[in-house]
């Protein structure tokens, strides 16, 4: 759906142009990380990375590779800005959530550079909407210093099994405790709420468990309020990898397939609430 009302001069001034035939391929994945208002955008040759942070303890990242876009032009090595994510999502879904097959909103996202607003051209059924969203100075995302060499325990699960557990989590519990161990209980999610405690155990030989690599027993607690929003990413994903490192930091990586079957990634990093070394 070419938005050819723009002149060549307009196009030349943009340092970033990203187009999608189906805006949902962007909006769905952004919804998966939208627990806070502001998002840091960082575009490179490889694609777009969108970061949302919460109280310096949690970071959510969405990765949309360049080849997902029908058009992806970037004129600098990196382009960074910050926008209000809620506003951006409202704009991306401005035509409403139509589920009529074959009807979708086309998007062309353009950015002139520092100080300029983010311009969105959205089209559906011949109707064009232009949105200009003010941008801010991008904050530097926290580096959680989570590297694969430091990973103590890792499991990869099919998302379906975790989805039910996450939707049932006792919200009166302030923490979500994750226990990973080479022996029983292998992989356990625990909550401690008003009516008592609950444990969800996944055995290592479950057919939902695609990978189980646990070297030593670790029990860590994370604030429920920080992790609960990750349920959105979980809902979109087909697989999730759960990793903890020697400091107890948690990394959740979600494999998401968009409407066209292409793969994108969402990851969450979270600091532990308190260290609980042994069972």
């Amino acid at each position: 759906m070419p938005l050819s009302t723009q002149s060549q001069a307009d196009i030349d001034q943009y340092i970033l142009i990203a187009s999608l035939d189906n805006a949902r391929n962007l909006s769905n994945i952004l919804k998966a990380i939208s627990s806070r208002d502001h998002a840091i955008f960082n575009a490179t040759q490889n694609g777009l990375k969108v970061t949302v942070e919460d109280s310096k303890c949690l970071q959510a990242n969405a990765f949309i590779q360049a080849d997902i876009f029908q058009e992806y032009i970037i004129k600098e090595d990196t382009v960074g800005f910050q926008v209000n994510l809620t506003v951006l999502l409202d704009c991306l879904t401005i035509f409403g959530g139509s589920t009529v097959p074959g009807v979708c909103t086309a998007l062309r996202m353009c950015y002139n550079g520092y100080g300029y607003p983010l311009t969105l051209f959205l089209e559906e059924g011949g109707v064009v909407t232009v949105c200009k969203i003010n941008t801010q100075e991008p904050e530097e995302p926290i580096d959680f210093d989570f590297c694969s060499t430091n990973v103590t325990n890792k499991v990869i699960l099919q998302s379906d099994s975790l989805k039910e557990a996450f939707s049932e989590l006792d919200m009166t519990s302030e923490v979500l405790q994750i226990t990973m161990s080479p022996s029983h209980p292998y992989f356990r999610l625990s909550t401690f709420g008003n009516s008592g405690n609950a444990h969800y155990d996944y055995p290592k030989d479950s057919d939902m468990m695609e990978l189980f690599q646990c070297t030593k027993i670790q029990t860590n607690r994370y604030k429920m309020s920080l992790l609960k929003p990750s349920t959105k990413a979980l809902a979109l994903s087909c697989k999730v990898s759960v990793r903890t490192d020697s400091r107890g930091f948690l990394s959740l990586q979600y494999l998401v397939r968009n409407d066209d079957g292409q793969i994108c990634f969402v990851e969450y990093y979270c600091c532990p609430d308190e260290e609980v070394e042994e069972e």
Partner: protein
Amino acid sequence: MDCVATGGNVKVLAKAIHSLSRIGEELYLEPLEDGLALRSVNSSRSAFACFLLSPLFFQRYQAPSDQSFRCKMPIKSVQAVFKSLASLDRSVEKCRIQLNSEKSRLTITLHCKHGLLKTHNLSYQDCESLQAVFDKESCANVLQAQPRLMVDTVLHFPPSLEEVNLSVSSDRVWLRNHVEDDTDSSRAMMTELCLSSEEFDHFAVGSQTSVTFCLKELRGLLVFADSSGLPVSMYFDEPGSPVILSVTDSVLEANFVLATLSEDSHPKNHVNSNTKRPDTEQPADDFMSDDMDSFLIAMETSELPGPSQVPTSPPQPTNDRKHSFSEEEQEEEALVEGPPNKKFCSLFFGSVLPTPSQLPNQTMQSQEVLASDSEDENQTETS
């Protein structure tokens, strides 16, 4: 205590708990020799429900060694264990209920597909046995119908409707919404449904009667009965006596006991009672009064004998608003009595929870304070 339910019975158990949640806020659990009793009562003690799951309902049923274990817990905590009701039969293979008395925890473990194990350790409070006293056998009127009939009938009444009036004659049943006498009749919407005795599987009417009870609390049982396909039996007598709705099969028995308005509850005595449920008398649409009048006239002159022709029962003595059907002498203190301005009589309970009036200095928290050894007088339901 160690009970294991498997397969489809896990969902039945979950549905029983959900039905009970429509009655009260707490679930009373008591493992008996006859089976596991799950009970609930509403705050004004005018509605009581009990599900008795026989040992055959379970793959394994082991009552605790000390026979007098009883506990109660917030029903929401137990409902949280069986959250995804729709997928329960697909995902859960086995449900195990165990008592951990050292830690005062009731452990409910769900063994799910793919090896997933969900363990819930719920805290509970010890309590007295909760048992409303009623006798189905002595009721003069008994109706039994397929749950679909009852669900379809009740569908015609708005969900917000609190009270419904059931009237029976020798061959018909009327269900109408109950409207306060002091409500302006031109502003009220009246709904009446008439069913012939042929619609019922069993129709035994001793005498023409009209009873009024709370519909809302009944809906929990209807949902359960409808999903299980079991017929619903109704037992009732004269106004003031509770109406009992019952669903039975070979491995479970559910009884919902609802208090009914007593005959002597004249509106002027209940001016204060409107504060109890201020929304009930919210009038429906503003009808044109002449249309309403002609509608009412038409109703009264219809060929069917209307409920207004039902002879009223002999007036009840005003100080005896509760009817007990207990067969045994009660040694306990006076029954739990609701505050005098409540319209519905509280049901007579065999439990010995002290009433607020009897123990004015005690806080409401300690309702489960034990009285004397009258707890040995465990009345079992007469069936």
